[in-house]
């Protein structure tokens, strides 16, 4: 067994690393001041990762560091940062991650080929930062977008006949149809499906039919990542000119108690991770960010709400004061982002050893 002691040392090392990065970037996890406020939009959140609607959404550039706290570690990172935006329409919240990756790795079939991927991690209880993948008794909710799932959805399931166009095999147990057969259609009888063990036992990675390219997961520490049964995360990823743009969308209200909660008053310590398949990045071999705290802007009060006896002039004064306050918060946030951008880059080698 990996001793509890050595695990604790690793966790402490990672915490120290994250603290270092946060200090370098000039941020602290303050309870008062989120680093990014998710603005309210009267229009529905944009679902297209390349929609021009994203142009007006504030962006924060999040530096990434290679994961080196646990084995297997990533020692040769390939992606330095990811640009993050978020917006909500009071029903849904949308995040967009944009990062440069010259290679479009949308396959995970060949034994030596790995997919591109991206993930967002939220603590399940608002305001409580969890170290990396959560800890015992401290659940994290992770949304994991996979380029091969995206390709399955966009261009059809990447069956063996797609990977190897001249592939031919004449017989499979309990198969229907004609060779070279089509997967999963000709293999859907339970007896045939038993020969695809991952599919038969319900492993999310092995399901040939998918609606969305994002897996909803929970974790409470390294190695505990588990697919969550409920609540699809909708979204889409597009690669264009050496850049991935990926949108993640979920209803603001969580479908289960162990999923991320987005409260207007609260603040979420959120982390981001990116994998570059060409660099054999998979699992723990990834680039990850330190925590970025997110706040949620409240939607405006609806006009039909009962208004008190107060004279109109007092209302106006209140709005002006609120607007000034809002502008101040935005200015502080922007300044924080600028400081973050100009700060020296995060240490590249992680410095924690493995």
């Amino acid at each position, binding site marked *: *067994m*990996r*001793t509890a002691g*050595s695990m604790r040392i690793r966790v402490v090392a990672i915490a120290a690393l994250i603290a270092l990065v946060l200090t370098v970037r000039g941020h602290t996890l303050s309870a008062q001041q989120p680093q990014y406020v998710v603005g309210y939009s009267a229009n529905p959140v944009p679902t297209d990762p390349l929609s021009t609607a994203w142009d007006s959404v504030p962006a924060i550039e999040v530096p990434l560091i290679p994961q*080196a706290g*646990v*084995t*297997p*570690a*990533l*020692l040769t990172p390939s992606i330095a940062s990811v640009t993050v935006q978020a917006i909500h329409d009071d029903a849904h919240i949308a995040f967009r991650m944009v990062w440069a990756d010259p290679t479009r790795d949308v396959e*995970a*079939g*060949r*034994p*030596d*080929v*790995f997919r591109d991927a991206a993930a967002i991690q939220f603590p399940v209880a608002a305001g409580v930062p969890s170290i990396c993948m959560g800890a015992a008794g401290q659940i994290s909710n992770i949304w994991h977008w996979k380029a*091969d799932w995206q390709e399955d959805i966009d261009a059809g399931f990447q*069956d*063996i006949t797609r*990977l190897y166009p001249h592939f031919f*095999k004449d*017989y*499979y*147990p309990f198969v229907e149809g004609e060779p070279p*057969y089509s*997967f999963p259609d000709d*293999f859907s009888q339970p007896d045939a499906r038993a*020969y*695809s*063990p*991952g*599919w*038969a*036992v*319900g*492993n999310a*990675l*092995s399901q*040939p039919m998918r609606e969305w390219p994002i897996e909803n997961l929970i974790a409470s520490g*390294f*190695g505990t*990542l588990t697919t969550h049964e409920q609540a699809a995360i909708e979204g889409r990823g597009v690669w264009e000119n050496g850049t991935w743009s990926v949108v993640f969308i979920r209803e603001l209200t969580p479908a289960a108690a162990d999923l991320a909660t987005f409260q207007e008053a609260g603040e979420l310590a959120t982390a981001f991770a990116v994998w570059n398949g060409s660099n*054999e990045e*998979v*699992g*723990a071999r990834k680039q990850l960010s330190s925590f970025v705290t997110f706040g949620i802007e409240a939607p405006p009060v609806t006009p039909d709400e009962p208004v008190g006896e107060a004279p109109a002039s007092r209302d106006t004064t209140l709005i002006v004061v609120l607007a000034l306050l809002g502008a101040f918060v935005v200015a502080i946030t922007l300044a924080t982002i600028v400081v973050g951008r100009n700060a020296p880059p995060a240490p590249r080698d992680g410095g924690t*050893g*493995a």
Partner: protein
Amino acid sequence: MPTVFNWQINREMEYPYEAALPERQFSAVFDLNKCIGCQTCTFSCKGGWTSGRGQEYMFWNNVETKPYGFYPMAWDARLLDMLGPQTWDGDTYTGKTIFEAAPPGRAALGFLPDEEDWAYPNIGEDEPNGIVSDGAYLQIPHPVWHFYLPRICNHCQFPACLAACPRKAIYKRPEDGIVLVDQQRCRGYRECMRACPYKKIMYNPVTRVSEKCIGCFPRVENGQQTLCVANCIGRIRMNGWIHTPDTADPENPVDFLVHVRKVALPLYPQFGLQMNIYYIPPVHVPPRYLRQMLGPGVERAIETYRQVHDDPDLLGVLVLSGATDRWINKFLVRDGQAIGFDESGAEIVRVPLKEPAFIRAFHDAERGVFRHNIT
């Protein structure tokens, strides 16, 4: 990192987990002198377990011709090269195991084979070690040699696949020591594939998770030997429960071959996995080559094996090999017969040490012909 005792290298070594011996350990002995390279084992396994979509390239059991056969390509040559000098002091290994030689950020020294490395499962078939020169004729010892090496997962005591999996999706069953990949937990990271020195983890391109030899556990649970063992044409294979040297049971056929007579040896013990498939070395192959592959016990094993005609117990175990598809727990040699018993002590098989032979005259006077085959 914890240290564990690995009896195959006769010393303590580093391993990411504490030693946890199963209640009993799945094992087998393969006699390389008898393998004819027919691949019946390969296809009995394939038909049984890997005929699904995405499993086409998988051979959980494969048979390769040594020295130039590999599946996947150069699996052992590459790792031996990466590991550097592998020195022994008597029975104690003084080089590094793959765990001790792990590069930074990894659990073990290893490599991920390229896609193409899996594409030639029978490369090097029947190729001898050297050129057969003009005018060559049969000599003893043979001027050139080759032999067949059948391989399955070794259900190691210290599996590298398990050590490398960050999700703990690989587990070793406490009831029989069989090593399995949990098909629900695996996320297809392929750390196991990179770490297993025997390259017996295979990635399914359709389900996008890893699979491996399951030790025919549904058969083993029912007292049957595995498909590859039970179907072996050359009768080279025998399953059994293996013990550590200090707890060896001389009536247990596998313990007898490995610990008592010491004719069966682990494959590349220097990798440090305390693997559980044992090989009787082929007597016609130069020990210099075999020492690298089967460790320092090779000469002793060959010498003992050559004396089998004067060793009824050894002969008894060898003739029981392939004589039944039931799992033999104990054996006994009495009155020129070898008897195998199951777990409950009931007799399941009885084989004569010497098959009755009839010798016919070279010349058949009645038909006026000479016989080519007189037995």
